């Protein structure tokens, strides 16, 4: 049965492997290594190659002639019988997770020439080439599913190598992939040009050309020097303890306002969306107050609250509360009626519906609201601090203007920008974490 084939056979083997689906577009190097594993064999017409439940050791590639491949009934293949000709691959049971026995009986219907490849050796070879290996495994799955009519359960057992194509593509590998794409594209260089233009213009306009209006503005070198100075002339830099005190005070005020607004705003919004009567009673008053600009409340807040500290936090809270409540209400109203009806059918009581349908369903809108709310609370905090605060970044900016310490104004502004960005990034992260289903759905919908 075994007939030795000469060196010419080597090129023949590569030619045949090139015809198969799994190795069709493998690189020449890998193909040569697979061909080296292959042992040619020849069968007469009617001779059986292997039968059901034999040990699944080798993989077969048909070089010439034709074989008949009949699945055992338990496999549940839609078409039990399959004829395999040149370029066809069979005997791949060894590639299935935990499958050691043959799933079919194969016999040559006419004189046939095949290549036998030891399955375990092939898997090791493919694992040594992670990229191409994963590719080949993926093509095996496509081939099995396209040429052999096997049910999905069997198909799902095709051994996945640990290469990038494994099922559990974690979001980390996706972000890495996105980052590598970003690096390869021209965007980072354009960004550098953008910043160079902006900072360059600032430097030239103020310090070099001394344009009319720009002369009094603090120059970039002054600001940077002040910011990084060990002992800054105006007492505020990365090394002074007071700088961080202002930051902490501002952040603490925003946090208090944000959490208070989130708890009250979300509950109020859920009630507004959930019960029609409540909305009919309360929403008109809510809408009457909403257009009043938050900062118009400043004097009234000072009067209402004895301590300026609580007045400042109240103003930041007010801004967030309106944004959160409104978006939560919109979230509840956006939930498709059929979800609530489905929960009804499935026997969920009111509270269970609230917990498993209303809240998760409204979550995307709630987080849109929270994004706006964190931005708006910084917006109002700064004004409140400028007008009435003792500490905080707004106060720093205003007093450094009054005391003509211009570089510190810019330091205050830049710090405010960074801190604002960081807090809203935190809210976004929390949103992505809580709504993983949405992150995947958006990724799939290419957004």
């Amino acid at each position, binding site marked *: 049965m075994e007939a030795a084939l000469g060196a010419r056979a080597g090129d023949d083997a590569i030619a045949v492997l090139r015809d198969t689906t799994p190795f069709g577009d493998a690189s020449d190097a890998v193909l040569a290594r697979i061909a080296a594993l292959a042992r040619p064999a020849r069968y007469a017409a009617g001779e059986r190659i292997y039968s059901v439940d034999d040990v699944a050791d080798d993989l077969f590639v048909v070089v010439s002639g034709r074989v008949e491949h009949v699945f055992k009934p338990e496999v549940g293949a839609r078409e039990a019988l399959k004829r395999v000709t040149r370029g066809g691959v069979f005997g791949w049971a060894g590639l299935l997770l935990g499958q050691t026995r043959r799933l079919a009986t194969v016999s040559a219907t006419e004189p046939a020439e095949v290549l036998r490849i030891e399955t375990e050796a092939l898997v090791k070879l493919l694992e040594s080439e992670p990229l191409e290996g994963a590719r080949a495994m993926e093509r095996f799955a496509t081939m099995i599913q396209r040429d052999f009519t096997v049910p999905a359960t069997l198909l799902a057992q095709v051994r996945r190598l640990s290469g990038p194509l494994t099922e559990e593509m974690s979001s980390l590998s996706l972000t890495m992939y996105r980052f590598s794409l970003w690096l390869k594209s021209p965007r980072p260089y354009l960004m550098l040009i953008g910043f160079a233009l902006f900072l360059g213009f600032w430097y030239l306009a103020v310090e070099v050309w001394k344009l009319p209006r720009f002369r009094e503005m603090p120059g970039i070198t002054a600001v940077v020097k002040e910011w990084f100075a060990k002992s800054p002339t105006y007492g505020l830099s990365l090394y002074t303890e007071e700088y961080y005190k202002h930051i902490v005070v501002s952040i603490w005020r925003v946090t208090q306002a944000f959490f208070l607004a989130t708890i009250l705003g979300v509950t109020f919004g859920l009630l507004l969306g959930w019960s029609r009567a409540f909305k009919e009673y309360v929403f008109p008053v809510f809408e009457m107050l909403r257009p009043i600009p938050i900062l118009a409340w400043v004097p009234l807040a000072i009067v209402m609250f004895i301590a300026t500290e609580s007045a400042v936090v109240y103003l930041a809270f007010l801004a967030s509360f309106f944004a959160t409540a409104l978006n939560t209400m919109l979230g509840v109203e956006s939930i498709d009626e*059929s979800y609530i009806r489905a*929960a*009804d059918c499935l*026997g969920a009581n009111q509270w269970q519906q609230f917990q498993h349908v209303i809240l998760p369903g409204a979550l995307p809108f709630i987080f849109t609201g929270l994004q706006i709310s964190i931005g708006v609370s910084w917006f109002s905090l700064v004004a409140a601090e400028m007008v009435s605060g003792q500490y905080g970044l707004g106060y720093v900016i205003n007093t450094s203007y009054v005391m003509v310490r211009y570089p510190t104004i810019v330091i205050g502004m830049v710090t405010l920008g960074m801190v604002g960005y960081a807090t809203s990034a935190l809210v976004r992260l929390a949103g992505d974490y809580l709504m993983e289903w949405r992150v995947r*759905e958006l990724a799939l919908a290419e957004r």
Partner: protein
Amino acid sequence: MRRPPAASTRGHIRIEDVVKVYDPEGAAVLAVDHCSLEIEPGEICMIVGPSGCGKTTLLNAIAGFHEITSGRIVMDGEVLCSTERPQSTPGPDRIVVFQNGALFPWKSNLENVIFGPVMQGKLARKEAIDKGRAMMSDAGLSGVEHNYPGEVSSGMRRRVEIVRALMNDPKVLLLDEPYRALDSLTKSVMHEALLEIYYKNKVTIFFITHDLEEAIFLGHRVAIMTTRPCKPKKVLNVDIPHPRDYSVLTSKRFRELIEETNDAVHEEALKAFQAGEKEG
């Protein structure tokens, strides 16, 4: 021979002289006009009619989402709703599969499937997961348990939804044009998948569609409804033996049944079309 193959006793629905009048902004609209229909237990009953003809109103009445104006709907001897008690309470014995799907996108497929029994406290979470996993692999859905509905194909979402319904061992499955958004090839695959599940579970199916071929391919009986206000115009007994597969679509008997009912359906569709019924 009209009795469905298995002599199951649950899910026998009698719709007796039901009338439904809507009054959006005061203009009384007659949606269902003295409709009477009987659905045998364990039978697939198809309701065919042009869009907007009031078939969904019937389904909503059985499910308990809307009330009826007069008449009675009885299931297995128990009065669901009547002139005195116009709205029945939704329950796990009558589960609806909605047109655009109602799988909770924020729960994984398996979580969706076990939602019913766990909420009603019928099964402990552990048991529900085992039963859910078994039913899902039975319907060829193994491997997608932990994916979110948004990540699987629309055909597969449909099957998860049906498995979610069957987990509660309902008396009747109320399907509201579930395959309307699918392309016709996936539709034919879904039909076979539905029949596969039906043969295993023998639940009564109340199926609404405007696609005549789908009705005759699936149904034991097909009720052709008039355009609004809807009432059964013709009831056809489909004597093609079960189990059926796609080859039925090109069989002689199937084509005869299509010809027999085609003009009846077309006539209603034309009336609806001229009456300017909103499409779909």
